[in-house]
């Protein structure tokens, strides 16, 4: 893909309509994709009258209102939900990347009895959804006295995130030239030292995996609902879901809650989107 020029530059004789058609369709689809989100955010800053009388208008001096945000921040435990999500997602992600990179390093660098089996065993979880083991997980969490704790969620999310992480990172460690490891061995570096030397080289992959593992954990409803449904341990996804259920008729509060729940993840996405796509592209064209 290195020397690909846009098709339009190579075919100067195509009709202008033909060249613009893709843009029309793409712009139209962007509107379809974004309109619902924009509509919600926009109306969250309006009074109830404004929401119902002119839903398509941006807030004006007359219709502007923060009443929904006041309700949400006043009654719901949103800061707490947010903190719970931050802890669960952050700790799970760190441990997934740490444990996953160690296992991938071992699978890529050493030949040992059963290495293929260990690799396949860990890869099993890529296709088999962890949700199917929910009853077993619930029974185990209850017997360990971990029901309604963030630890329960973290442990399950680590198990959920590891298979794909190990699978992808193994391929990236394999691409590191052998000479590098040999040189380190020659200098008397220990195996653990070599792990710390090679891991920075797979950093782009770690970044991408980080984003792709983080989003499903942050957004998950299933495990918080089943393993940690208490108000103290609710994550932002579960907390929003329960709040919305209770306040269905308070449109201001619902719109404000939706907006508050969307903002952090959209900000993260905008910050990292370039790297996310780049890593997918790099993986395929390598």
């Amino acid at each position, binding site marked *: *893909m290195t020397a*690909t*020029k*846009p098709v339009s530059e190579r075919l100067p004789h195509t009709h202008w309509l033909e060249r613009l058609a*893709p*843009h029309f*369709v*793409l712009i139209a*689809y962007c509107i379809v*994709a*974004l309109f*619902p*989100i924009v*509509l919600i955010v926009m109306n969250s800053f309006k009074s109830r009258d404004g929401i*119902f009388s002119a*839903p398509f208008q941006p807030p004006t001096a007359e219709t502007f209102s923060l009443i929904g945000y006041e309700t949400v921040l006043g009654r719901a435990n949103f800061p707490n939900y947010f903190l719970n999500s931050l802890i669960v997602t952050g700790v799970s992600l760190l441990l997934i990347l740490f*444990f996953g990179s160690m*296992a991938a*390093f*071992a699978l890529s660098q*050493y*030949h*040992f*009895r059963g290495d*293929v089996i*260990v690799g396949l065993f*860990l890869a099993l*979880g890529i*296709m*088999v*959804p962890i949700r*199917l*083991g*929910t*009853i*077993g997980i619930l029974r*185990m969490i209850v017997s360990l006295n971990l029901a309604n704790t963030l630890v329960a969620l973290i442990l399950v999310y680590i*198990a959920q995130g*590891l298979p794909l992480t190990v699978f992808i990172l193994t391929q990236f460690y394999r691409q590191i030239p052998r000479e590098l490891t040999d040189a380190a061995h020659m200098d008397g570096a220990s*195996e*653990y030292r070599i792990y710390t030397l090679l891991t920075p080289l797979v950093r782009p992959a770690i970044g991408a995996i980080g984003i792709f593992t983080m989003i499903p954990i*942050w957004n998950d*409803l*299933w495990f918080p609902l*089943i393993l940690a449904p208490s108000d103290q341990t609710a994550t932002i996804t579960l907390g*929003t*879901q329960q709040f*919305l259920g209770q306040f269905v008729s308070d449109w201001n509060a*619902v*719109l404000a809650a939706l907006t508050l*729940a*969307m903002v952090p*993840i*959209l900000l993260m*996405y*905008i910050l990292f989107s370039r790297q996310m*796509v780049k890593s*997918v592209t790099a*993986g*395929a064209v390598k």
Partner: protein
Amino acid sequence: MQTPNVHKSRSFPWHILIFLAPAVIVYTVFMIIPLIDSLRLSLYAITPDHQEVFNGLNNYVVLLTDPRWSAAFQNAFWNNVKFFIIHMVVQNSIGLLLASLLVAGGRARSVYRTLIFAPTVLSVVIIGFIWNLILSPLWGVGESILKAVGLGALFAPWLGLASSALTTLSLISVWQFIGIPMLLFYVALLGIPEELMEAARVDGAGGWTAFWRIKFPLILPTVGIVAILTFVGNFNAFDLIYTVKGAQAGPQFATDIMGTFFYRTFFGSQLQLGNQPMGATVAGMMLFIILAGVAVYLFFWQRRIATYDL
């Protein structure tokens, strides 16, 4: 596995064990053992005094043949099949269309890509509620939009009607996740060398012919990956239905799919008590369905299609 002699002379490779242990232990304890335990439980019954007794394949027989269970199971299964077909047809074909347009999109393509992918990163809970509001006759936003394009007469409370609720929910899910097939197809299309398309044009192939005769066969591996990802994701779905319709998956179970059926069976709901062995049996069936899909992919699709080294 042949181990080189060097390794034999060395002491036991503790470092390999240390590198592998944390991942293997957490994964085994919190994923593999619960899965096996759940499958084991599906072969047991729980007596009124809370004893587990071995029950053979009886739970599966009950789920498939006892009318009290089989009607609900078949309803959820066929709804799920419909959910999957709508994703395959609508999501993946629009995804492919958007991807092929993106490749021709010039400099603005990263902007389009970022914007179209945005709903995919949001939680299903948020998406479910947003559409619930937009389609609500109370707010009337959906109706006004349809009126603006002259289709006002078509509007109905789609999410509330048994005849249209499942299709509507499927399309909401399609709207949210279209970014994934788009991105995967886009990456695959980028990998096709421009020389190949050049050659096709010289031979007189138009855009349409060139796409279906040259590009599409080349991205067949990605088509397979997208199909299997959609399949596994759809037969494991739960959040959207639960958010919009609750555990009862109303109206009259018209939107019930395997995930909500599984949840209701083992966790219970207003109308029934939770039943762990039967829940485990539903999970066992879901595992069987997903593995059957994966097997079809591995043994029929991956073997049959020719892959070209580009």
